[in-house]
Protein backbone atom coordinates (compact mmCIF):
# COMPACT_ATOMS: atom_id res chain seq x y z
CA UNK A 1 0.00 0.00 0.00
CA UNK A 2 1.36 3.36 -0.95
CA UNK A 3 1.86 6.19 1.44
CA UNK A 4 0.57 9.71 1.14
CA UNK A 5 2.99 12.24 -0.21
CA UNK A 6 1.12 15.46 0.26
CA UNK A 7 1.89 18.74 -1.45
CA UNK A 8 0.25 21.83 0.02
CA UNK A 9 0.56 24.98 -2.12
CA UNK A 10 0.00 28.16 -0.12
CA UNK A 11 -0.17 31.85 -0.99
CA UNK A 12 0.78 35.03 0.81
CA UNK A 13 -2.05 37.53 0.56
CA UNK A 14 -3.20 40.75 2.20
CA UNK A 15 -4.63 39.85 5.60
CA UNK A 16 -8.34 39.10 5.38
CA UNK A 17 -9.25 41.70 7.98
CA UNK A 18 -7.55 44.52 6.06
CA UNK A 19 -9.58 46.70 3.76
CA UNK A 20 -7.74 46.92 0.44
CA UNK A 21 -7.25 50.25 -1.32
CA UNK A 22 -6.61 50.91 -4.98
CA UNK A 23 -3.50 52.95 -5.82
CA UNK A 24 -3.71 56.41 -7.38
CA UNK A 25 -2.65 55.31 -10.83
CA UNK A 26 -5.41 52.67 -10.84
CA UNK A 27 -3.01 49.90 -11.73
CA UNK A 28 -3.26 47.71 -8.64
CA UNK A 29 -4.30 47.34 -5.04
CA UNK A 30 -1.74 48.85 -2.66
CA UNK A 31 0.26 46.14 -0.95
CA UNK A 32 3.24 48.05 0.49
CA UNK A 33 3.14 48.37 4.28
CA UNK A 34 -0.06 46.35 4.46
CA UNK A 35 -0.35 43.36 6.77
CA UNK A 36 0.01 40.08 4.90
CA UNK A 37 -0.76 36.53 6.02
CA UNK A 38 -1.35 33.07 4.70
CA UNK A 39 -4.48 32.82 2.54
CA UNK A 40 -7.16 31.60 5.00
CA UNK A 41 -8.15 28.64 2.81
CA UNK A 42 -4.51 27.51 2.70
CA UNK A 43 -4.40 27.30 6.50
CA UNK A 44 -7.21 24.77 6.17
CA UNK A 45 -5.15 22.82 3.62
CA UNK A 46 -2.14 22.54 5.92
CA UNK A 47 -4.36 21.65 8.86
CA UNK A 48 -6.07 18.92 6.84
CA UNK A 49 -2.73 17.46 5.75
CA UNK A 50 -1.58 17.33 9.37
CA UNK A 51 -4.86 15.75 10.44
CA UNK A 52 -4.49 13.09 7.75
CA UNK A 53 -1.14 12.26 9.34
CA UNK A 54 -2.66 12.18 12.82
CA UNK A 55 -5.58 9.99 11.73
CA UNK A 56 -3.12 7.67 10.02
CA UNK A 57 -5.78 5.75 8.08
CA UNK A 58 -3.25 5.90 5.26
CA UNK A 59 0.31 6.57 6.46
CA UNK A 60 1.67 9.99 5.51
CA UNK A 61 5.21 9.86 4.28
CA UNK A 62 5.71 13.56 3.86
CA UNK A 63 3.95 16.93 3.83
CA UNK A 64 5.62 19.51 1.62
CA UNK A 65 4.50 23.13 1.72
CA UNK A 66 5.01 25.16 -1.43
CA UNK A 67 4.71 28.80 -2.35
CA UNK A 68 5.48 30.81 -5.45
CA UNK A 69 5.77 34.40 -4.34
CA UNK A 70 7.95 37.27 -3.16
CA UNK A 71 10.86 36.70 -0.75
CA UNK A 72 8.53 37.41 2.17
CA UNK A 73 6.43 34.38 1.27
CA UNK A 74 8.98 32.38 3.25
CA UNK A 75 7.27 33.68 6.40
CA UNK A 76 4.08 31.81 5.57
CA UNK A 77 6.09 28.70 4.65
CA UNK A 78 7.63 28.86 8.15
CA UNK A 79 4.12 29.11 9.57
CA UNK A 80 3.06 26.07 7.54
CA UNK A 81 6.04 24.14 8.89
CA UNK A 82 5.19 25.25 12.42
CA UNK A 83 1.70 23.80 11.93
CA UNK A 84 3.19 20.52 10.72
CA UNK A 85 4.61 20.56 7.19
CA UNK A 86 7.93 18.67 7.06
CA UNK A 87 9.75 20.96 4.67
CA UNK A 88 9.01 23.55 2.06
CA UNK A 89 9.84 24.81 -1.40
CA UNK A 90 9.80 28.48 -2.24
CA UNK A 91 9.83 29.57 -5.85
CA UNK A 92 10.81 33.21 -5.59
CA UNK A 93 8.66 35.35 -7.84
CA UNK A 94 8.64 39.10 -7.31
CA UNK A 95 5.31 40.67 -6.54
CA UNK A 96 5.24 42.66 -9.77
CA UNK A 97 5.67 39.42 -11.72
CA UNK A 98 2.90 37.57 -9.89
CA UNK A 99 1.78 34.46 -11.73
CA UNK A 100 -1.69 33.78 -13.04
CA UNK A 101 -3.54 30.64 -11.86
CA UNK A 102 -2.65 28.80 -15.06
CA UNK A 103 1.04 29.65 -14.56
CA UNK A 104 0.88 28.42 -10.97
CA UNK A 105 -0.87 25.23 -12.11
CA UNK A 106 1.86 24.58 -14.71
CA UNK A 107 4.52 25.16 -12.07
CA UNK A 108 2.75 22.85 -9.63
CA UNK A 109 2.50 20.18 -12.28
CA UNK A 110 6.32 20.16 -12.41
CA UNK A 111 6.63 20.23 -8.63
CA UNK A 112 4.20 17.31 -8.25
CA UNK A 113 6.30 15.36 -10.71
CA UNK A 114 9.56 16.26 -8.96
CA UNK A 115 8.25 15.53 -5.46
CA UNK A 116 6.30 12.44 -6.52
CA UNK A 117 3.25 13.79 -4.70
CA UNK A 118 0.06 11.76 -4.82
CA UNK A 119 -2.22 14.22 -3.06
CA UNK A 120 -2.33 17.97 -3.55
CA UNK A 121 -4.44 20.00 -1.14
CA UNK A 122 -5.10 23.63 -2.08
CA UNK A 123 -7.45 26.33 -0.87
CA UNK A 124 -10.59 26.75 -2.97
CA UNK A 125 -9.66 30.35 -3.77
CA UNK A 126 -7.22 33.04 -2.75
CA UNK A 127 -8.93 35.99 -1.14
CA UNK A 128 -7.04 38.56 -3.24
CA UNK A 129 -7.66 37.47 -6.82
CA UNK A 130 -10.80 35.44 -5.96
CA UNK A 131 -10.27 33.37 -9.12
CA UNK A 132 -10.78 29.90 -7.64
CA UNK A 133 -9.01 28.11 -10.48
CA UNK A 134 -5.59 26.73 -9.55
CA UNK A 135 -6.64 23.36 -8.08
CA UNK A 136 -8.95 22.50 -10.97
CA UNK A 137 -6.35 23.59 -13.53
CA UNK A 138 -3.69 21.48 -11.88
CA UNK A 139 -5.98 18.43 -11.81
CA UNK A 140 -6.71 18.99 -15.51
CA UNK A 141 -3.04 19.26 -16.44
CA UNK A 142 -2.16 16.15 -14.42
CA UNK A 143 -5.31 14.35 -15.59
CA UNK A 144 -6.02 13.50 -11.96
CA UNK A 145 -9.31 13.27 -10.09
CA UNK A 146 -10.42 16.44 -8.35
CA UNK A 147 -12.70 17.28 -5.45
CA UNK A 148 -13.28 20.98 -4.95
CA UNK A 149 -14.81 22.84 -2.01
CA UNK A 150 -14.26 19.91 0.30
CA UNK A 151 -15.89 19.99 3.71
CA UNK A 152 -14.96 16.42 4.68
CA UNK A 153 -12.14 14.18 3.52
CA UNK A 154 -11.47 10.58 4.46
CA UNK A 155 -8.78 8.38 2.98
CA UNK A 156 -8.61 4.61 3.44
CA UNK A 157 -5.74 3.04 1.55
CA UNK A 158 -5.98 4.47 -1.94
CA UNK A 159 -9.67 5.15 -1.73
CA UNK A 160 -10.76 8.72 -1.03
CA UNK A 161 -14.22 9.92 -0.02
CA UNK A 162 -14.87 13.64 -0.14
CA UNK A 163 -17.94 15.63 0.78
CA UNK A 164 -18.19 18.82 -1.28
CA UNK A 165 -20.14 21.99 -0.68
CA UNK A 166 -22.33 22.65 -3.70
CA UNK A 167 -25.19 25.05 -4.44
CA UNK A 168 -28.05 24.07 -2.17
CA UNK A 169 -26.23 21.53 0.00
CA UNK A 170 -23.49 18.92 -0.12
CA UNK A 171 -22.55 15.99 -2.33
CA UNK A 172 -20.27 13.04 -1.68
CA UNK A 173 -17.78 11.66 -4.17
CA UNK A 174 -15.60 8.61 -4.12
CA UNK A 175 -12.36 8.39 -6.03
CA UNK A 176 -8.81 7.05 -5.96
CA UNK A 177 -5.39 8.55 -5.44
CA UNK A 178 -3.66 10.45 -6.92
CA UNK A 179 -5.91 13.47 -6.70
CA UNK A 180 -6.32 17.19 -6.09
CA UNK A 181 -8.52 18.48 -3.28
CA UNK A 182 -9.49 22.11 -2.67
CA UNK A 183 -10.61 23.12 0.80
CA UNK A 184 -13.74 24.93 1.89
CA UNK A 185 -14.19 26.84 5.13
CA UNK A 186 -16.07 24.08 6.89
CA UNK A 187 -13.35 21.46 6.44
CA UNK A 188 -11.64 22.04 9.76
CA UNK A 189 -10.56 24.57 12.35
CA UNK A 190 -6.87 25.35 11.80
CA UNK A 191 -4.71 25.11 14.92
CA UNK A 192 -2.37 27.80 16.15
CA UNK A 193 1.31 27.08 15.87
CA UNK A 194 2.78 26.73 19.35
CA UNK A 195 5.98 28.55 20.25
CA UNK A 196 8.08 25.35 20.47
CA UNK A 197 6.79 24.34 17.05
CA UNK A 198 7.59 27.78 15.65
CA UNK A 199 11.15 27.35 16.97
CA UNK A 200 11.39 23.86 15.49
CA UNK A 201 10.08 25.10 12.15
CA UNK A 202 13.11 27.38 11.87
CA UNK A 203 15.28 24.30 11.57
CA UNK A 204 13.15 22.65 8.91
CA UNK A 205 14.37 22.72 5.34
CA UNK A 206 13.24 25.57 3.10
CA UNK A 207 14.48 25.20 -0.44
CA UNK A 208 14.66 28.27 -2.67
CA UNK A 209 14.05 27.90 -6.37
CA UNK A 210 13.24 29.97 -9.41
CA UNK A 211 10.84 29.50 -12.30
CA UNK A 212 13.83 28.79 -14.52
CA UNK A 213 14.74 25.83 -12.28
CA UNK A 214 11.48 24.27 -13.46
CA UNK A 215 12.06 25.30 -17.06
CA UNK A 216 9.26 27.84 -16.94
CA UNK A 217 9.06 31.52 -17.72
CA UNK A 218 6.29 33.94 -16.90
CA UNK A 219 3.82 34.10 -19.65
CA UNK A 220 0.93 36.32 -18.69
CA UNK A 221 -2.17 35.96 -20.76
CA UNK A 222 -4.21 38.61 -19.06
CA UNK A 223 -3.27 42.26 -19.09
CA UNK A 224 -4.56 44.53 -16.36
CA UNK A 225 -6.23 47.51 -18.00
CA UNK A 226 -7.16 49.15 -14.74
CA UNK A 227 -8.13 48.57 -11.14
CA UNK A 228 -10.75 50.86 -9.66
CA UNK A 229 -12.57 51.35 -6.39
CA UNK A 230 -16.08 49.92 -6.46
CA UNK A 231 -18.91 52.45 -6.53
CA UNK A 232 -19.68 53.50 -2.98
CA UNK A 233 -23.21 53.26 -1.69
CA UNK A 234 -24.81 56.47 -0.58
CA UNK A 235 -25.14 56.71 3.17
CA UNK A 236 -28.63 55.68 4.17
CA UNK A 237 -30.87 56.81 6.95
CA UNK A 238 -31.46 55.46 10.41
CA UNK A 239 -35.06 55.10 11.42
CA UNK A 240 -36.50 55.24 14.92
CA UNK A 241 -38.75 52.22 14.90
CA UNK A 242 -40.26 49.39 12.91
CA UNK A 243 -43.02 51.61 11.46
CA UNK A 244 -40.35 53.99 10.24
CA UNK A 245 -38.53 51.10 8.61
CA UNK A 246 -41.64 49.87 6.82
CA UNK A 247 -42.57 53.31 5.52
CA UNK A 248 -39.02 54.02 4.39
CA UNK A 249 -38.86 50.68 2.56
CA UNK A 250 -42.14 51.54 0.85
CA UNK A 251 -40.78 54.92 -0.13
CA UNK A 252 -37.77 53.21 -1.68
CA UNK A 253 -40.04 50.83 -3.54
CA UNK A 254 -38.66 47.77 -1.81
CA UNK A 255 -42.02 46.69 -0.38
Amino acid sequence: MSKLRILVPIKRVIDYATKPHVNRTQTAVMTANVKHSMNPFDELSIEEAVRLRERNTTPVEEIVAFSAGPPKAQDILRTAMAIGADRSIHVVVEEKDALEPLGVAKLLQKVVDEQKSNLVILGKQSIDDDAGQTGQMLAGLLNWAQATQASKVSIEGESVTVTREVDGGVETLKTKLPMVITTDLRLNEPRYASLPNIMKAKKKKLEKKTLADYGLAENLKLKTIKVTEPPTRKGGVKVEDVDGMISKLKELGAL
Partner: protein
Amino acid sequence: MFSVARQSVLRRARTQLRSAQPTTLPQYSALARLLSTLAVLEQREGKLNVSSLAAITAGTKLGGSITAFVAGSGAKAVADEAAKVKGVDKIIYVENGAYDKGLPENFAPLLVENIKKGGFTHVFAGHSAFGKNIMPRVAALLDSQQISDITEIESEDTFVRPIYAGNAILTVQSSDSIKVITVRGTAFPSPETDGGSAALEEGVDPKVESPTEWVSEDLAKSDRPDLGSADKVVSGGRGLKSKEEFDRLMPPLADALGAAIGASRAAVDSGFADNSLQVGQTGKNVAPQLYLCAGISGAIQHLAGMKDSKVIAAINKDPDAPIFQVADVGLVGDLFDKVPELTEKLKAQ
Protein backbone atom coordinates in the same frame (compact mmCIF):
# COMPACT_ATOMS: atom_id res chain seq x y z
CA MET B 1 -29.48 44.31 -28.28
CA PHE B 2 -26.37 46.26 -27.36
CA SER B 3 -23.38 44.50 -28.75
CA VAL B 4 -19.88 45.62 -27.93
CA ALA B 5 -18.12 43.07 -30.05
CA ARG B 6 -20.07 43.88 -33.14
CA GLN B 7 -19.08 47.53 -32.84
CA SER B 8 -15.44 46.79 -32.42
CA VAL B 9 -15.49 44.24 -35.21
CA LEU B 10 -17.03 46.80 -37.53
CA ARG B 11 -14.45 49.31 -36.44
CA ARG B 12 -11.68 46.88 -37.13
CA ALA B 13 -13.13 45.94 -40.51
CA ARG B 14 -13.44 49.59 -41.47
CA THR B 15 -9.86 50.30 -40.46
CA GLN B 16 -8.75 47.45 -42.63
CA LEU B 17 -10.65 48.77 -45.62
CA ARG B 18 -9.31 52.25 -45.06
CA SER B 19 -5.74 51.08 -44.83
CA ALA B 20 -6.09 49.72 -48.38
CA GLN B 21 -3.51 47.09 -47.57
CA PRO B 22 -4.05 43.68 -49.09
CA THR B 23 -5.99 41.90 -46.39
CA THR B 24 -4.45 38.64 -45.42
CA LEU B 25 -6.42 35.50 -44.85
CA PRO B 26 -5.60 34.95 -41.18
CA GLN B 27 -7.09 38.33 -40.35
CA TYR B 28 -10.28 37.44 -42.13
CA SER B 29 -10.59 34.14 -40.40
CA ALA B 30 -9.88 35.87 -37.10
CA LEU B 31 -12.82 38.15 -37.82
CA ALA B 32 -15.07 35.31 -38.81
CA ARG B 33 -14.21 33.43 -35.64
CA LEU B 34 -14.56 36.44 -33.44
CA LEU B 35 -18.20 36.20 -32.59
CA SER B 36 -18.83 32.63 -31.68
CA THR B 37 -19.96 31.88 -28.15
CA LEU B 38 -20.61 28.58 -26.44
CA ALA B 39 -22.89 28.95 -23.42
CA VAL B 40 -22.62 25.96 -21.08
CA LEU B 41 -26.00 25.17 -19.53
CA GLU B 42 -26.68 23.11 -16.43
CA GLN B 43 -29.37 20.53 -16.02
CA ARG B 44 -30.58 18.60 -13.07
CA GLU B 45 -32.59 15.42 -13.45
CA GLY B 46 -33.60 16.36 -16.98
CA LYS B 47 -34.62 19.90 -16.03
CA LEU B 48 -32.88 23.02 -17.26
CA ASN B 49 -31.24 25.04 -14.49
CA VAL B 50 -32.63 28.47 -15.27
CA SER B 51 -29.89 30.34 -13.43
CA SER B 52 -27.33 28.88 -15.85
CA LEU B 53 -28.98 30.91 -18.63
CA ALA B 54 -26.84 33.85 -17.46
CA ALA B 55 -24.20 32.37 -19.80
CA ILE B 56 -26.55 33.06 -22.72
CA THR B 57 -27.17 36.62 -21.53
CA ALA B 58 -23.41 37.17 -21.49
CA GLY B 59 -23.28 35.84 -25.05
CA THR B 60 -25.98 38.23 -26.24
CA LYS B 61 -24.12 41.15 -24.65
CA LEU B 62 -21.02 40.15 -26.54
CA GLY B 63 -22.87 39.78 -29.84
CA GLY B 64 -22.40 37.21 -32.54
CA SER B 65 -23.68 33.68 -32.72
CA ILE B 66 -24.61 31.82 -29.57
CA THR B 67 -24.58 28.08 -29.23
CA ALA B 68 -25.76 26.52 -26.00
CA PHE B 69 -24.45 23.22 -24.69
CA VAL B 70 -26.14 20.65 -22.47
CA ALA B 71 -25.21 17.08 -21.53
CA GLY B 72 -26.69 14.29 -19.43
CA SER B 73 -29.49 11.78 -19.60
CA GLY B 74 -32.50 13.60 -20.98
CA ALA B 75 -30.27 16.24 -22.56
CA LYS B 76 -32.44 16.22 -25.68
CA ALA B 77 -35.50 17.23 -23.64
CA VAL B 78 -33.50 19.96 -21.90
CA ALA B 79 -32.26 21.12 -25.30
CA ASP B 80 -35.88 21.32 -26.53
CA GLU B 81 -36.67 23.53 -23.56
CA ALA B 82 -33.57 25.68 -24.03
CA ALA B 83 -34.30 26.06 -27.76
CA LYS B 84 -37.10 28.46 -26.84
CA VAL B 85 -34.72 30.80 -25.02
CA LYS B 86 -34.32 34.07 -26.88
CA GLY B 87 -30.98 34.73 -28.51
CA VAL B 88 -29.77 31.16 -28.95
CA ASP B 89 -28.95 30.07 -32.49
CA LYS B 90 -28.07 26.46 -31.90
CA ILE B 91 -28.03 23.90 -29.13
CA ILE B 92 -25.52 21.11 -28.92
CA TYR B 93 -26.68 18.26 -26.74
CA VAL B 94 -24.97 15.09 -25.62
CA GLU B 95 -27.30 12.39 -24.33
CA ASN B 96 -25.32 10.30 -21.86
CA GLY B 97 -26.04 9.55 -18.21
CA ALA B 98 -22.32 9.70 -17.40
CA TYR B 99 -22.62 13.51 -17.47
CA ASP B 100 -25.60 13.80 -15.10
CA LYS B 101 -23.65 14.84 -12.04
CA GLY B 102 -21.25 17.19 -13.75
CA LEU B 103 -18.10 15.28 -12.83
CA PRO B 104 -15.20 17.39 -14.11
CA GLU B 105 -13.05 14.35 -15.00
CA ASN B 106 -15.31 13.47 -17.92
CA PHE B 107 -17.29 16.68 -18.38
CA ALA B 108 -14.18 18.81 -19.00
CA PRO B 109 -12.84 16.61 -21.85
CA LEU B 110 -16.39 16.49 -23.28
CA LEU B 111 -16.53 20.27 -23.37
CA VAL B 112 -13.03 20.56 -24.78
CA GLU B 113 -13.92 18.25 -27.68
CA ASN B 114 -17.04 20.20 -28.50
CA ILE B 115 -15.32 23.58 -28.13
CA LYS B 116 -12.55 22.54 -30.50
CA LYS B 117 -14.97 21.07 -32.99
CA GLY B 118 -17.21 24.15 -32.95
CA GLY B 119 -14.32 26.61 -33.17
CA PHE B 120 -15.74 28.81 -30.45
CA THR B 121 -13.91 31.93 -29.34
CA HIS B 122 -15.78 32.43 -26.10
CA VAL B 123 -17.04 29.89 -23.63
CA PHE B 124 -19.35 31.20 -20.92
CA ALA B 125 -20.72 29.36 -17.90
CA GLY B 126 -22.33 30.54 -14.70
CA HIS B 127 -20.06 31.07 -11.70
CA SER B 128 -22.01 28.39 -9.84
CA ALA B 129 -20.70 25.31 -8.02
CA PHE B 130 -20.84 23.52 -11.40
CA GLY B 131 -19.04 26.28 -13.33
CA LYS B 132 -16.43 26.82 -10.63
CA ASN B 133 -15.65 23.12 -10.57
CA ILE B 134 -15.47 22.39 -14.28
CA MET B 135 -14.48 25.49 -16.21
CA PRO B 136 -10.93 25.98 -14.85
CA ARG B 137 -10.21 22.38 -15.81
CA VAL B 138 -11.53 23.08 -19.29
CA ALA B 139 -9.44 26.26 -19.47
CA ALA B 140 -6.26 24.43 -18.49
CA LEU B 141 -6.89 21.75 -21.11
CA LEU B 142 -7.25 24.53 -23.70
CA ASP B 143 -4.20 26.38 -22.31
CA SER B 144 -6.41 29.38 -21.63
CA GLN B 145 -6.29 31.63 -18.57
CA GLN B 146 -9.88 31.65 -17.34
CA ILE B 147 -11.55 34.85 -16.22
CA SER B 148 -13.78 34.15 -13.22
CA ASP B 149 -17.01 35.74 -12.08
CA ILE B 150 -17.21 38.61 -14.55
CA THR B 151 -19.76 41.36 -13.99
CA GLU B 152 -19.33 43.27 -17.28
CA ILE B 153 -18.18 42.78 -20.85
CA GLU B 154 -16.32 45.75 -22.31
CA SER B 155 -15.34 44.23 -25.62
CA GLU B 156 -14.63 40.81 -27.07
CA ASP B 157 -11.36 40.59 -25.13
CA THR B 158 -11.88 42.92 -22.18
CA PHE B 159 -13.85 41.98 -19.10
CA VAL B 160 -14.60 43.39 -15.67
CA ARG B 161 -14.54 41.39 -12.45
CA PRO B 162 -14.41 42.07 -8.74
CA ILE B 163 -11.28 41.18 -6.76
CA TYR B 164 -10.42 41.40 -3.06
CA ALA B 165 -13.95 40.49 -1.97
CA GLY B 166 -15.39 43.17 -4.23
CA ASN B 167 -13.22 45.90 -2.72
CA ALA B 168 -11.59 46.51 -6.08
CA ILE B 169 -12.85 46.18 -9.63
CA LEU B 170 -10.42 44.77 -12.16
CA THR B 171 -10.61 45.28 -15.91
CA VAL B 172 -8.54 42.71 -17.81
CA GLN B 173 -7.75 42.08 -21.41
CA SER B 174 -7.24 38.50 -22.52
CA SER B 175 -4.82 37.42 -25.23
CA ASP B 176 -6.16 33.86 -25.35
CA SER B 177 -7.67 32.67 -28.61
CA ILE B 178 -10.37 30.80 -26.70
CA LYS B 179 -11.66 32.81 -23.78
CA VAL B 180 -13.05 30.71 -20.96
CA ILE B 181 -15.21 32.80 -18.67
CA THR B 182 -17.56 32.32 -15.74
CA VAL B 183 -20.23 34.96 -15.25
CA ARG B 184 -21.83 36.32 -12.11
CA GLY B 185 -25.52 35.45 -12.37
CA THR B 186 -26.75 38.60 -10.65
CA ALA B 187 -24.92 40.75 -13.21
CA PHE B 188 -26.39 38.92 -16.22
CA PRO B 189 -30.13 38.46 -15.66
CA SER B 190 -31.77 35.51 -17.37
CA PRO B 191 -32.99 36.02 -20.93
CA GLU B 192 -36.61 35.52 -21.98
CA THR B 193 -37.40 31.84 -22.00
CA ASP B 194 -39.72 31.87 -24.97
CA GLY B 195 -39.83 33.22 -28.47
CA GLY B 196 -36.56 31.60 -29.53
CA SER B 197 -36.23 28.78 -32.02
CA ALA B 198 -32.73 27.33 -31.91
CA ALA B 199 -31.65 24.41 -34.05
CA LEU B 200 -30.69 21.22 -32.25
CA GLU B 201 -27.53 19.31 -32.99
CA GLU B 202 -25.99 16.28 -31.40
CA GLY B 203 -22.52 16.93 -30.00
CA VAL B 204 -19.43 14.74 -30.03
CA ASP B 205 -19.01 12.41 -27.06
CA PRO B 206 -15.42 11.38 -26.32
CA LYS B 207 -16.72 9.03 -23.55
CA VAL B 208 -13.81 9.59 -21.18
CA GLU B 209 -13.99 7.35 -18.12
CA SER B 210 -14.17 9.24 -14.84
CA PRO B 211 -12.05 7.91 -11.97
CA THR B 212 -14.51 9.64 -9.66
CA GLU B 213 -17.85 8.23 -8.74
CA TRP B 214 -20.77 10.27 -7.46
CA VAL B 215 -22.09 8.71 -4.27
CA SER B 216 -24.84 10.84 -2.81
CA GLU B 217 -26.08 14.31 -2.12
CA ASP B 218 -27.90 16.07 0.64
CA LEU B 219 -29.64 19.17 -0.57
CA ALA B 220 -31.52 21.52 1.72
CA LYS B 221 -35.16 21.35 0.69
CA SER B 222 -37.16 24.51 0.72
CA ASP B 223 -40.32 25.92 -0.82
CA ARG B 224 -38.83 29.38 -0.62
CA PRO B 225 -37.41 31.24 -3.62
CA ASP B 226 -33.86 30.35 -4.63
CA LEU B 227 -31.35 32.46 -2.69
CA GLY B 228 -29.27 33.38 -5.72
CA SER B 229 -32.15 34.76 -7.75
CA ALA B 230 -34.75 35.83 -5.15
CA ASP B 231 -36.26 39.33 -5.31
CA LYS B 232 -36.09 39.62 -1.57
CA VAL B 233 -33.67 38.11 0.90
CA VAL B 234 -33.79 38.14 4.68
CA SER B 235 -30.54 37.25 6.32
CA GLY B 236 -29.51 36.50 9.87
CA GLY B 237 -26.18 36.62 11.65
CA ARG B 238 -24.43 35.90 14.88
CA GLY B 239 -26.82 38.23 16.70
CA LEU B 240 -29.52 35.56 16.52
CA LYS B 241 -27.56 33.65 19.16
CA SER B 242 -28.82 30.12 18.44
CA LYS B 243 -30.31 27.85 15.82
CA GLU B 244 -33.59 27.84 17.75
CA GLU B 245 -33.82 31.62 17.60
CA PHE B 246 -32.79 31.64 13.93
CA ASP B 247 -35.53 29.13 13.13
CA ARG B 248 -38.04 30.98 15.30
CA LEU B 249 -37.45 34.47 13.89
CA MET B 250 -36.18 34.25 10.31
CA PRO B 251 -38.65 31.92 8.49
CA PRO B 252 -41.78 33.88 9.55
CA LEU B 253 -40.13 37.12 8.40
CA ALA B 254 -39.16 35.48 5.11
CA ASP B 255 -42.73 34.20 4.70
CA ALA B 256 -44.19 37.63 5.40
CA LEU B 257 -42.07 39.05 2.58
CA GLY B 258 -41.99 36.06 0.24
CA ALA B 259 -38.22 36.16 0.63
CA ALA B 260 -35.36 33.68 0.51
CA ILE B 261 -33.31 33.15 3.67
CA GLY B 262 -29.60 33.85 3.85
CA ALA B 263 -27.03 33.90 6.63
CA SER B 264 -23.65 35.30 7.53
CA ARG B 265 -20.61 33.07 7.92
CA ALA B 266 -20.80 33.48 11.68
CA ALA B 267 -24.35 32.13 11.69
CA VAL B 268 -23.38 29.21 9.46
CA ASP B 269 -20.23 28.37 11.44
CA SER B 270 -22.21 28.43 14.67
CA GLY B 271 -24.65 25.96 13.15
CA PHE B 272 -27.65 28.34 13.10
CA ALA B 273 -28.15 27.88 9.37
CA ASP B 274 -27.14 25.53 6.57
CA ASN B 275 -23.84 26.14 4.73
CA SER B 276 -25.67 26.62 1.46
CA LEU B 277 -27.34 29.75 2.84
CA GLN B 278 -24.08 31.62 3.36
CA VAL B 279 -23.95 34.99 1.65
CA GLY B 280 -20.53 36.51 1.03
CA GLN B 281 -17.14 36.27 -0.65
CA THR B 282 -16.97 32.53 -0.19
CA GLY B 283 -20.69 31.84 -0.24
CA LYS B 284 -23.44 33.09 -2.53
CA ASN B 285 -23.60 36.42 -4.27
CA VAL B 286 -27.03 37.98 -4.17
CA ALA B 287 -28.39 41.21 -5.59
CA PRO B 288 -32.09 41.26 -4.69
CA GLN B 289 -34.48 44.22 -4.69
CA LEU B 290 -34.45 44.07 -0.90
CA TYR B 291 -31.79 42.63 1.40
CA LEU B 292 -33.03 42.79 4.96
CA CYS B 293 -30.56 41.62 7.56
CA ALA B 294 -30.67 41.23 11.32
CA GLY B 295 -27.80 40.64 13.69
CA ILE B 296 -25.14 40.97 10.98
CA SER B 297 -22.26 43.35 11.69
CA GLY B 298 -21.19 43.74 8.06
CA ALA B 299 -17.68 42.28 7.73
CA ILE B 300 -16.09 42.92 4.31
CA GLN B 301 -16.43 39.25 3.41
CA HIS B 302 -20.18 39.46 3.96
CA LEU B 303 -20.60 42.79 2.16
CA ALA B 304 -18.87 41.20 -0.85
CA GLY B 305 -21.90 38.99 -1.34
CA MET B 306 -24.73 41.50 -0.96
CA LYS B 307 -23.66 45.07 -1.56
CA ASP B 308 -25.12 45.11 -5.05
CA SER B 309 -28.60 44.70 -3.57
CA LYS B 310 -30.98 47.47 -4.64
CA VAL B 311 -32.13 48.32 -1.13
CA ILE B 312 -30.34 47.20 2.02
CA ALA B 313 -32.11 47.32 5.38
CA ALA B 314 -30.42 46.40 8.63
CA ILE B 315 -31.45 45.77 12.19
CA ASN B 316 -28.59 45.75 14.67
CA LYS B 317 -28.22 46.79 18.26
CA ASP B 318 -24.74 48.25 17.70
CA PRO B 319 -25.15 51.73 16.17
CA ASP B 320 -21.52 51.62 14.99
CA ALA B 321 -21.83 48.29 13.11
CA PRO B 322 -20.28 48.64 9.63
CA ILE B 323 -23.51 47.32 8.09
CA PHE B 324 -25.07 50.75 8.72
CA GLN B 325 -22.54 52.33 6.35
CA VAL B 326 -24.07 50.46 3.44
CA ALA B 327 -27.67 50.14 4.62
CA ASP B 328 -30.26 52.40 3.01
CA VAL B 329 -32.47 51.92 6.02
CA GLY B 330 -31.01 51.17 9.43
CA LEU B 331 -32.78 50.43 12.66
CA VAL B 332 -30.77 50.37 15.87
CA GLY B 333 -32.45 48.00 18.25
CA ASP B 334 -32.73 44.54 19.72
CA LEU B 335 -33.56 42.14 16.91
CA PHE B 336 -35.44 39.89 19.33
CA ASP B 337 -38.03 42.68 19.67
CA LYS B 338 -37.78 44.27 16.26
CA VAL B 339 -37.90 41.22 14.02
CA PRO B 340 -41.14 39.77 15.45
CA GLU B 341 -42.71 43.23 15.43
CA LEU B 342 -41.67 43.75 11.82
CA THR B 343 -43.01 40.31 10.90
CA GLU B 344 -46.38 41.05 12.49
CA LYS B 345 -46.70 44.47 10.89
CA LEU B 346 -45.74 43.16 7.46
CA LYS B 347 -48.28 40.36 7.76
CA ALA B 348 -50.99 42.81 8.78
CA GLN B 349 -50.50 44.80 5.58
